[in-house]
């Protein structure tokens, strides 16, 4: 005789990823590393921002980058020129980094270097405004970028990325005069969803706003 019974699980669907993220964060904490997850749509300027950041802060801060890319090492090669370890992770057809992939990156870093020497690790996520926001990787903070060419309505259309962000960088502001974009409206759209977020307008090309970003960054380091 058979009977149908129910077991209440009440477990997060992403439990396995979350457990991995907690594990990664424990490693970061043990090594005294601050980890930031950098996210945006493709082409918003994550890599050029990291180039400027590495150039400005190396060697005052000991940094490393875990670079997520679906197929190539093009971005990783760009960043390696700044003399910091860059671990490239190809996600294949996956549109985001997950905690397991970042764990692999951490093991590579620990195999080749003394991880306790590092202050700051950037995870450059795959360019995508949708799913990276749902997959924690063990970061201490999330930085989202939106370029002025993307339009002021993106925070309303892709709210979760903007809601999760601790810092929002409005990038490519040197292009704003050539576009029909209202930056104040863009900011107020973000604040509808995330009133606490730090918003910095910057241009990696002209250097406008970069110092504010670097100050915010230095304040994150433990």
């Amino acid at each position, binding site marked *: *005789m*058979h*009977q*149908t*019974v*129910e*077991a*209440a*699980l*009440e*477990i*997060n*669907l*992403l*439990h*396995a*990823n979350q457990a991995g993220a907690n594990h990664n964060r424990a490693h970061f904490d043990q090594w005294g590393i601050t980890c930031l997850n950098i996210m945006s749509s493709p082409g918003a300027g994550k890599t050029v921002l990291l180039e400027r950041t590495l150039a400005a802060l190396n060697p005052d801060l000991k940094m490393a980058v875990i670079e997520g890319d679906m197929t190539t090492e093009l971005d990783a090669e760009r960043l390696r020129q700044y003399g910091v370890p860059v671990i490239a992770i190809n996600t294949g057809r*996956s*549109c*985001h980094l*997950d905690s397991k992939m970042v764990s692999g990156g951490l093991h590579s870093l620990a195999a080749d270097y003394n991880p306790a020497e590092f202050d700051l690790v950037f995870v450059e996520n795959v360019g995508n405004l*949708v*799913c990276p*926001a*749902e*997959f924690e990787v063990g970061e201490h903070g999330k930085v989202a970028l939106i370029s002025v060419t993307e339009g002021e309505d993106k925070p*309303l*259309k892709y*709210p*979760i990325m903007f809601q999760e962000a601790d810092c929002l960088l409005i990038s490519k502001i040197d292009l704003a005069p050539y576009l029909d974009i209202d930056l104040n409206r863009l900011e107020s759209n973000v*604040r*509808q*969803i*995330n*009133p606490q977020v730090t918003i910095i307008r910057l241009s990696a090309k002209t250097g406008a706003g970069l110092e504010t970003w670097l100050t915010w960054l230095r304040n994150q380091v433990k």
Partner: protein
Amino acid sequence: MHETDMTKALILTVRQWWEEQPSRPQIDTIHLTVGQFTCVEPASLQFAFAAQTQKGFLEGVKLAIHETPLVAFCHACQEEYKPKIGLHYSCPSCQSPMEDIRSGRELKIDRIEYTQSCVEI
């Protein structure tokens, strides 16, 4: 399609539960709660689940997805409201930002329905 990865995570968690059961029961239905304010599309999740469970311990198992609406609470007005996803999130009465989400962010394996053999007396 991130629902593929979400499904992998789901199967991993259910497998863990299943292996912990002494009788390895025949699972009938997995009940999920998925909020509308998540990056998950239920139809894509169903598709990925069907594709990834064609063989193995979840073959033929049903996935029941219960969607929850986005509901926020405005502290200034002391009232709940339903933000319009994609259009407007602040309080429609006083324009305070959406700070307190009461429903819509769930991504949960709620419960598992399974068949258990019992001894006849």
